[in-house]
């Protein structure tokens, strides 16, 4: 499972960077500004059989 995190804090060195984290955790701390980030689970692409 991949969870996406993006920090929107303008002063943060990580601002705008989309992190694709493989950790099964919907909450992360931004390593740039220490804010709490809420993740969104990346949806698997649907396949037609």
């Amino acid at each position, binding site marked *: 499972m991949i*969870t996406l*995190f993006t*920090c929107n804090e303008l002063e943060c*060195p*990580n601002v705008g*960077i989309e*992190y*694709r*984290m*493989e*950790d099964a*955790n919907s*909450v*992360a*701390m*931004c*390593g*740039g500004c220490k804010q709490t*980030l809420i993740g969104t689970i990346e949806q698997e692409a649907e396949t037609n059989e």
Partner: protein
Amino acid sequence: MPRKTFVAGTLATASDVNTYLMDQSVMTFATATARNTAIPTPTEGMLTFQASNDHLTIYNGTDWVPFDTTWNTYTPTLAGVTLGTGYTLSAAYAQLGKTVIVQFYFALGATSAITGDVSFSLPINHASSNRSGQAGTCAITDASPATRYPGSILLSGTPGYAFFRVGNAAGTYLTQVALSSSVPIAAWAVNDSLTATIVYQGV
């Protein structure tokens, strides 16, 4: 059940003893903010639990010091790396008082690149730069042909960063060098990876 303050003349019922004094010998709060509002002047040795992140915190007379009961995901600031697309990244830490444990993993994706001296930001700044000269171990793995290069991690800077170092066997004695676009893998490619585990004294 909120925290109850007993004052002179307050009748302590059996229910008060059972709920406030017994069940809340470790006070539980949703967040650190809620804790700080409920306990504006904590007493040294107080123990609380934060439900939002499952952390125990102990007041040491100055600060609430966390004792994590779970690992925390964090998004490290990276240097010497182009994330690109299709990569796999995992970074997590646990803080036990002033001891911080961090694990890091990055596998290159289709458009990822190693561009220089690779480092990642620490979740908690380190307390001593001298004793943090070697804070853990790392391994760099070439996916094809499968080759594993051992190395170590040094901590530097404020805010703190963890730097990868790998062995260079060119001289009489093994030395350690920084990573680059060609070290230790001549041509980094998809699924090549870096992993590290470090333990250090946090501030």
